């Protein structure tokens, strides 16, 4: 039972690949899905309706649910932080001007 603890939390039951490979697969699937969402101008994953359905399926197949929730939440947070970061950058630039 102990041997398959990693695969039980991920749909991918492949114990021949290393964890690093599994992670890469998930990240790539996530990046493909998020790129599609960016193109559709959707921030909150799951609200895009039927767009990006194929990318979403691959994403859900390759990543654990806890990871999916985490990445989706982080995407929303990153979007929220964008104006703040832009403001910080402008302030920094202004401060540097003599």
């Amino acid at each position, binding site marked *: 039972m102990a041997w398959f603890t990693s695969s039980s*939390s991920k749909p991918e039951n492949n114990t021949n690949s290393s964890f690093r490979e599994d992670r890469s697969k998930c990240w790539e699937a996530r990046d493909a899905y998020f790129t599609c969402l960016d193109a559709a101008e959707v921030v909150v994953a799951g609200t895009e309706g039927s767009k990006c359905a194929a990318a979403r399926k691959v994403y859900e197949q390759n990543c654990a649910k806890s990871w999916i929730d985490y990445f989706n939440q982080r995407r929303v947070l990153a979007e929220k932080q964008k104006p703040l970061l832009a403001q910080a950058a402008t302030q920094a630039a202004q401060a540097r001007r003599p």
Partner: protein
Amino acid sequence: VFTPKAAALFVLAGSGLFFYFRWEKQRLQEQKQKEMESRSVGRAHVGGSFEMTTHDGKPFTDKDLLGKWSLIYFGFTNCPDICPEELDKMSAAVTELDKSFGPIVQPIFISVDPARDTLPQMARYVSDFHPRLIGLAGDYATTKATCKAYRVYFSTPPGTKPGDDYLVDHSIFFYFMDPDGNFVDAFGKSSTEVDVVERVKREIEEWKAGKGRLA
């Protein structure tokens, strides 16, 4: 008798003493400054005794930290991206340090997820990183005690089962310990590999200057 010769001698002795004392005071001040900067002053009490098991199934306690510099990262194998990134950073730093000093820095990964991070799981996980990376795990009580000693926050509740799917919230630092097992510094997410290498190098060289050996 107050002769010009006696007066000259007096002035000479006086000025000699004046300059000597000034030099001595300067020297003492520099020494104090050095002591302030040195290892024993102003360091947090992080660390302490712990007993865990390595990914190879061998016992490992705080005593096993002695005689080597250590970089200790707390995380869990089901971590989405932060733990692998930090461990990659740590592994790269150790590889770089190996080039300068040989294998005197010991990278360690301690699990904060006792339910899922079994020894085989840990063994498989650490094989992705530096060849000398040691994975340590223990039961819930041990994990909690070790985290407390290192002031690491972690959110795993006691009742989790191996098949559960959850993420563990935990503080993201790796701790740099000296060959006496004492805490030196902590590196966060914003530290780069270069920062780590430089800090460790500086500490090792200071140690060598004081003790005449690398660890």
